[in-house]
C-alpha cells in the first residue's frame, strides 16, 4: 500500500541528553507502555507495555485471538476504561487526567465508534440514529438531522433517513453505523470487529467504505478484527499477543 510508512510503532523515548527531534506530524493518539489486568480476586495480566502511535489520517488494524484483549485496548483508547499501567495520550492529553465528563466530551467530539453488533437504537429512524452524536454534542436538532442526511448519503444510503432500523440488512446497518461514526467529523474512528457479523460480500463493501471515508476526511482509524481480510485494508497492521503488540506486514 502506498501510504505505508516504514516507521517503528514504538515512540522514541526522549533522550535526556539530546533534545529529541520533533515528530514530523503530531501524534493523534499515543499509547505509552500501557498494561491491563483483568479479574478482581486473582488478576490476570492481559497485556503489558504496549506502545502505539496513531497519526492523524492513518488506518491501523489490530488482529489477535479471541480474549487477547483487543476490545479492551479499544476501550482504553476511548477512555472507556483505564489502564493499570502506562499512559493513553489523546491529542497531547493524558486520558488519566480527564474526569468523567471531559472523557465523555472527548468521545462525543473527537471519536467515532463502529461496533460488531452495529448498536443502532431500534426505535429510532436511520436519520435519528446518525444524528445522535451531534445532538449529544449539543448541535441544534434541525442542523443535526440535516447533517445526518448528508452523512447517510456519504455511506451510500441517500434519502433513506426515515427508514426504521429493523428493515436494514447487516451491511446496511454497518453503513449506518459508519455514517454515525463520521457524522460529527471525529479525529479518530474506533472500529471493533466491524465485519464480524457480516457476510464476506457486505464485509468487503463496508471495509472499502471505511477506508475511503476515513481517507477522504483525514480521519484516523483503529480497527480491531480477527479477520486478516479486514486487516489488509489498513495502512499498518499489528498483532496483539501475550508478548505485546507486534507489527505484521500487511498483505
Amino acid at each position, binding site marked *: 500500500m502506498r501510504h505505508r510508512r516504514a516507521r517503528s510503532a514504538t515512540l522514541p523515548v526522549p533522550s535526556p541528553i539530546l533534545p529529541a527531534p520533533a515528530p514530523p506530524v503530531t501524534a493523534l493518539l499515543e499509547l505509552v507502555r500501557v498494561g491491563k489486568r483483568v479479574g478482581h480476586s486473582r488478576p490476570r495480566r492481559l497485556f503489558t507495555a504496549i506502545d502505539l502511535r496513531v497519526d492523524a489520517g492513518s488506518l491501523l488494524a489490530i488482529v489477535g485471538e479471541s480474549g487477547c484483549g483487543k*476490545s*479492551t485496548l479499544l*476501550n482504553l483508547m*476511548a477512555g*472507556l*476504561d483505564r489502564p493499570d499501567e502506562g499512559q493513553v495520550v489523546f491529542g497531547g492529553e493524558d486520558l488519566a487526567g480527564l474526569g*468523567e*465528563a471531559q472523557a*465523555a*466530551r*472527548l*468521545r*462525543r*467530539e473527537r*471519536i467515532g*465508534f463502529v*461496533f*460488531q*453488533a452495529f*448498536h443502532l*437504537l*431500534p*426505535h*429510532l*429512524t436511520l*436519520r*435519528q*440514529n446518525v*444524528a*445522535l*452524536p451531534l*445532538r*449529544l*454534542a449539543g448541535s441544534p*436538532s434541525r442542523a*443535526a*438531522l440535516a447533517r445526518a442526511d448528508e452523512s447517510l448519503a456519504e455511506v451510500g444510503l441517500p434519502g433513506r433517513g*426515515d*427508514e*426504521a432500523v*429493523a*428493515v436494514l440488512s447487516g451491511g446496511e446497518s454497518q453503513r449506518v453505523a459508519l455514517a*454515525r461514526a463520521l457524522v460529527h467529523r471525529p479525529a479518530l474512528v474506533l472500529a*471493533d*470487529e466491524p465485519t*464480524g*457479523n457480516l457476510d464476506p460480500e457486505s464485509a468487503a463493501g463496508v471495509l472499502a467504505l471505511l477506508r475511503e471515508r476515513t481517507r477522504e476526511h483525514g480521519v484516523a482509524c483503529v480497527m480491531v478484527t480477527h479477520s486478516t481480510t479486514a486487516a489488509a485494508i489498513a495502512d499498518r497492521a499489528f498483532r496483539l499477543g501475550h508478548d505485546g503488540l507486534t507489527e505484521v506486514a500487511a498483505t
Partner: protein
Amino acid sequence: MSARGARSPRVGADPLAAFILSGLRAAPGRALAVVLAIAIGVGMGLGIYLINRTALDEFSGAVQFLIGEADYELHAGRDGFDESAWARVARLPEVAAAAPVVDVTARVERKARPAGAADASQGEAYPERRMLRVLGIDLFRLARLNTRLIPMAGSASGAAEPSRDSLADLLGADTVFLSAAALVELDAQVGDRLGLRVGDSLRWLRIAGTLPGVPAGQRLAVMDIAAAQWQFDRLGVLHRIDVKLAQGVDDARARRAIAAVVPAGVDIATAQDAERRTSNLSVAYRVNLNVLALVALFTGGFLVYSTQSLSVHRRRSQLALLRTLGATRAMTVSLLLAEAGVLGVAGSLLGAMLGVAAAAAAIARFGGDLGGGFFPGIAPELSVDPAGLVLFCLLGVAAALAGALLPVLAAARVPLAGALRAQPQDVAERAIRPRLVPGLALLATAGLLCLLPARDGLPLAGYASVLLLLLGGVALTPAIGRAVFIRLDRIGDRLDAPAWMGLAVARASASSGMTRLALASVVASFAVMVAMGIMVSSFRDSVDRWLVTVLPADLYLRTAAGSDTGWLTSDELEALRSTPGIARVEPLAVGTLPLDARRPAVALVARPIDATDPGARLPLIGQARPAPPGLLPVYPSEPMARIYRMEVGERRTLALGGQSVEVFVAAIWRDYARHYGALAIDLEDYRRLVPGVRVSDAALWLAPGASASGVVERLSRDLPGFSRIEVTEPGIIREQSLRIFDRSFAITYLLEAVAVIIGLLGVAATFSAEALARRREFGVQRALGMTRGAIASQLALEGVLFAAVGAAVGGAVGGAISLLLVEVINPQSFHWSMDLAVPWALLVSLAGALVVLSAGTAVLAGRAAIAPGTVGALREDW
C-alpha cells in the same frame, strides 16, 4: 408486517426526544399503569383538597358573613345564655353597637301553599329530613353591624303587595325570611308556610320574604328575635351578641368590660377566632384523607420505580451506547428522568382532570364534607383553585421522578467497558453486596421522629416516621434476603435437596438489582397491607366494643338528630315511664360547652350517671375516683381530656349554666363519636345548674318478657306525637355505625388492592426482565437433562422465596407502621386511643395469597425462557 409500517418514528423528530419516547413505547402497558397510578394519586389528593377547600371557603365565608362588621361575637354553647346580659353589654360605654341573636336549627317537617290553612294536619310532609338554621335577629340593632342579614319583605321578583304590612312582616311573630339556597333546599317560595318541629308541637311560619344579602349557597333563615324566642321555646335565651366597639377602645379594655357583665361561659371571640374554629373543625379529617392520597401517590412512585428498573435493565446496552458516544452520566440521568417526567406529567394531567371531576361529582352528591357533617347548612359550588391544581400536579411529577431516581442513578453507574460487546447479556450482572447502614439509619430516624408531639394538632412527624419506616424496611430487605438465602443454600446442600431447589436458592441469593426490585416491591406492598389491615381492624374492633358499652339499653328514642328544637316533654317522659313493658327510662340531654374560642365547642352529655359506678354507663379508661363532697363529678371523654389536658382526680372550674362551677374529674371515658371532646355529667346535677334542661333522647329498658316491637306498637298508639320520635334498637345503631365506619374506610381497601398489584408487578417485572437472559441458562439446564417441569418449579420456588422473605420483612415493617398509626397518629389527630387488634387470619391469608400469586407470577413471567425450543437459544445472538 413491515417493521417500517409498524412503528415508523416521526420524520424529523429529535433523536433525543425519540429516545425518551422509545423507552415508553417499548412497554406501553407498563407506561399506562404508571400513568394511571400517578393519576389516581394526584386525582385523589386534588379531589380531596378541592372538596375541602371549597367547603371550607364556603363555610368560613359563612362565618365571616355572619359576623359582618362586628368586632366580637359573644357566644355560649347550644343552651345559650341569659338575655339580660345583652342590655348590660349594650349599655357599656366601650360598646358602640350590640346586636342580640338567637340561633336555632330546626327540622322542617311540612310545607303548605298559601291556599292551605296553617293547620298542622295540612300541607305536605317532606319525605327526607330537612333542617333549617334560623337566626332570630333584632333588625334595628343588627342593621348597624351586618346589613347583609337584613330581610326583604315580599318576593324577590316583585314589590311587596300593597296591602301587606311589611313592618309587621319584618317584625312578625310568625314570619320567616329565607335565603335563596334555603328556598331551593326546601322547594318553597315566598308566601308558603313551613311547619317546624319544636318539641311536641309543629310551629307554622310564613315565608314573608327573602334574604337578598346572603351569599349564594348559604342555607339560612332569619326572623325577628322575639318571634324566634317564642316560637322555638327559647324565652329569655340568647345564643350570640355581636358587638361593635366604640372608636378608640382597645381590645384588652373592651374584653375586661364585657367579661364583667356577661355570665360565666360566654366566650368573646373575634372573627379570626371563628375562622380558626372552622378550620380546626375539619383539619384532622382533611389531613387524614390527604395522607391517604399521598399513600396513593407513593404507590404510584413505587410503580414508577419498578417499571423504570425494568426499563433501564432492558436498555442497559442502549444506555451504554449513549455513554460511549459521549453522553455524560448527567445527560443520561436527565434523559431517563425526562422519560419518567413524561409519565409523571401525563399522569398528573389525567389526575387533575379526574380530581376536578371527582370533586365536582362528590360535592354535588354528598356536599362539601362527604357526608361527614362538619359543614352543615351550605351548598357549595366547586371552586378550582389554581395553586392547588399546580401543587398536586407537581407532586405527581415529583412522585414519578422520585420513583425513577434510584434505577436511573444505578443505570448511569453501569461500567461501560464490555457493555457493548456483541452479546452483552452474557455479562453476568455483578452481584452487589447489600448495605445495612442506610436502612438502619432510616429506621433509627423513624424511631426518633415518632416520639415527637403533633404540630398544630397534626401528627406530621408521625407521618414522616411512617414513610421512613417503609423506606428503611425496603432498604434493609436485600441484606436480610441475602442472609436468609445464603443460609437456605447451605441447608439445602446439607439436606441433599433436588437440583431445581438448589438452583432456585442459589439464584435468589445472587441478589442482583432485579431481585432487589422483587423484594422491595413485596416488602412495600405487604407493609402497606399489614399496616392498614391492623389499623382498620384495631379501630373497628375498638369502635365495636365501645358501641356495645355505650348502648346498654333495649331501645333508644331520639328526637333532635341535628336540630335544636326536638325534645321530649316531661309529660311524654312520664308517659314513657308508665307504659307497661318499660322497666326503666333514662333520659339524655345534649348541649355544648365552648371552652376555647379557637376550637369547636365540647359536647355536653347529661344523663343519669351513678357517681359510685360511672362505668355502668360510660366505657371508662382506667379507674374512676369518687368526687370529694361538695364537688360536682364530671366525666370528660378521652378527646376532651387530651385536648384540655384533664386528668382523673383533678379539680377544675367550668362554666355550666352561666355560672362558674367547681368540678371534679371523676373518670375519663372512651368516645369515638366526637373528636372535639364531650363532657358527661349526671342529668340531675345538670338540672340543678340549668333549670329547664331539654331532654332530646331516652334509653328504654324493657320489663322481663316484654318485646321491643310490642312496646313500640303500644307507644305509637298511646303517645301523641310519637311519629316524630325515632326509635332504634342498639343492634341496628351498632350495625349502622359499623356500616358508616366501613364506608369511610372503603378507600383503604382500594389502596390495599393497589398495594397487592404493586407487589406482584415487582415480581413480574423481575422475572420477565431476566427471562430473556435466562433462556440461555435454562437452555443449558435442559441440555443437561432437567425437565421443563423442574425449571418451572425452580421459577416458582424463586417466586416463593422472594415473596416469603418480602412478606416477612413487610409484615414486620407493616406491624411497626400500624403501631405508629394506632399509638401515635390516631391519638394525635383525633385525640382518641384504641386497642391493638391484629387480624391474624386476614394477614396470614394475605401473606399466603401473596406467596402463591408470586410463585404463579414468576412462572408466568419466566415462561418465555422455558418455552419449547429453548435449547436453540444457545445459538441465539442479540
